[in-house]
């Protein structure tokens, strides 16, 4: 074999080489216990610290935003006076609009009482023309909200009610759960709309309350404008449109501020940890100068030394991040604190490994440039 024929070793041997490198990195991590333990301690501590602070804050932020959303940050409520001209014809027009998650149209309120209790407390009853309420539409009979059932004295929401206006009796088949943006209608009995096979002309189905839920708080303003434009009323002064636009703006602001706080906390924690990891690795490389010098003398390329150091750090930091996130999640659960989302937890683990690898680049390059003559020669 001549001097120019010694090449090779790449190509088909790539996977074999990667496997050998991973094995060497793992063995290095195991044999250099002190450095590995220090790295594990730093990275795991960072994961625990971030998840117990920023992670918990993120979980709390989600709860705050969720409760804000429960207050109806995405809802648009249209109230129409009698004779306004708002009828079920608006429903087909709403179906053509984008940005809407759900809508429901209710008729005018009619007081009903428990048919079995003479002189019982009245409760508002409304026809529901469109929109599934907790998945139970179309309703074969009437449904009562929990508050309405309590007020009417209907056990488990089952019984019959009588309209004060018409004297007609309607069976109530059970309870219905109202979403947060419909609770302003409480207490409420929902009456079945006429069957769709034989629908009355729209103008015979006047709508008194229309509730539209936008897909996100950010589009509430645009959806409200679109809904207003398709109401089809004769006199705009006979309807009022209430939006949660201001509440949505507050929600966005709160979300951004909580997010900024979390990001700042996470970034500063990881910046500090990467400095610590870099310091540990520099110390490790300084202690192992002869080791790297020997490797270079025996034929290790600079890129291989860099890959070895990064591989060792990657394996150690990976194990540490799994351990650290596990400890943090279990701790939060035991303390009955809100748990960060799986995406946040995974992001912390990935970020921990990434920052460790970035911190390891300079020490790895330093290790790869050890001069065998300087490190190995015995004076």
């Amino acid at each position, binding site marked *: *074999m*001549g*001097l*120019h024929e*010694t*090449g*090779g*070793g*790449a190509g088909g*041997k790539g996977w*074999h*080489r990667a496997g*050998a*490198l991973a*094995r*060497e990195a793992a*063995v*290095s991590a195991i*044999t*250099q216990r002190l450095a590995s333990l220090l790295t594990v301690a730093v990275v795991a501590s960072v994961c625990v610290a971030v998840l117990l602070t920023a992670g918990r804050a993120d979980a709390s932020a989600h709860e705050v935003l969720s409760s804000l959303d429960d207050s109806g940050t995405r809802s648009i409520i249209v109230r129409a006076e009698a004779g306004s001209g708002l009828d079920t014809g608006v429903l087909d027009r709403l179906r053509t609009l984008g940005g809407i998650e759900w809508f429901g149209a209710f008729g005018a309120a009619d007081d009903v009482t428990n048919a079995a209790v003479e002189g019982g407390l009245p409760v508002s009853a409304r026809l529901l023309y469109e929109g599934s309420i907790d998945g139970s539409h179309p309703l074969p009979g009437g449904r009562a909200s929990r508050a309405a059932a309590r007020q009417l004295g209907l056990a488990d929401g089952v019984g019959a009610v009588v309209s004060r206006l018409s004297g007609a009796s309607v069976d109530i088949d059970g309870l219905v759960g109202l979403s947060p943006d419909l609770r302003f209608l409480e207490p409420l009995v929902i009456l079945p709309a006429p069957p769709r096979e034989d629908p009355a002309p729209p103008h015979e189905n006047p709508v008194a309350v229309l509730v539209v839920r936008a897909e996100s708080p950010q589009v509430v303003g645009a959806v409200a404008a679109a809904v207003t434009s398709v109401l089809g009323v004769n006199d705009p002064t006979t309807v009022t449109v209430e939006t949660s636009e201001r509440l949505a703006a507050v929600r966005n602001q709160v979300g951004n501020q909580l997010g900024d706080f979390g990001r700042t906390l996470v970034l500063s924690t990881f910046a500090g940890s990467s400095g610590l990891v870099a310091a540990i690795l520099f110390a490790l490389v300084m202690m192992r100068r*002869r*080791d790297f010098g*020997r*490797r*270079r*003398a*025996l*034929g*290790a*390329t*600079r*890129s*291989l030394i860099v890959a070895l150091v990064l591989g060792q750090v990657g394996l150690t930091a990976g194990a540490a991040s799994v351990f650290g996130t596990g400890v943090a999640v279990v701790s939060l659960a035991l303390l009955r604190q809100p748990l960060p989302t799986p995406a946040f937890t995974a992001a912390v683990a990935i970020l921990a490994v990434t920052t460790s690898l970035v911190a390891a680049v300079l020490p790895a390059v330093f290790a790869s440039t050890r*001069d*065998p*003559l300087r490190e*190995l*020669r*015995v004076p």
Partner: protein
Amino acid sequence: MTGFRVEARDLTFGYGGGRPLFEHFSTGVGAGELVALTGASGRGKSTLLYHLGLMVRPHGGSILVDGVPADALPDDRRAELRARLLGFVFQDALLDPGRTVLDNVLETALYRSESRRVSVRRAHELLARFGVEQRAEARPGQLSGGQAQRIALCRALMNRPGILLADEPTGNLDAQSAAVVLGAFREAAEGGAAVLVATHDPWLTSHSDRVVTL
């Protein structure tokens, strides 16, 4: 692996700002030759070995391998030549204390991208040949000086080197171990390798084909 000649031509090199250790110095070792490199301490025996081992670039002149100026090659290419073409026995064995003897012998297989399975067979052959196979799973800290140097020799011979360089390989060995080491050098030279041994050992010098004195 046979037929390589390594030589320093017009080598100039010095440490710091002092007087150069070498000024236009030339020497070489041919294929099949066992050459002893002697001289007083501090005259540059180890430095010359590191130059011929392509571990350091000379300040002047060149290192030729089969007539090719190898010192001018890119760093990765020189590393590859060290892994595939050269064997090096260090003065104090320089084994990795955290690894087993077998892993130490196999270390250079990684640098040559050789399969560990194939390399393990040759490693065991070499350990058996030098009488240390039973220590394959031992750590370097559990070895005597003679055993450590034999392990280092096994590591250097793993790639069947065309050029074998050794730095005071018998300095701390008893006569029996020194004989084993010399036997290995002689066998490598008879196999066609160019063997250069830096030594103060008159016995080793007397058994070499030629002596270069610095």
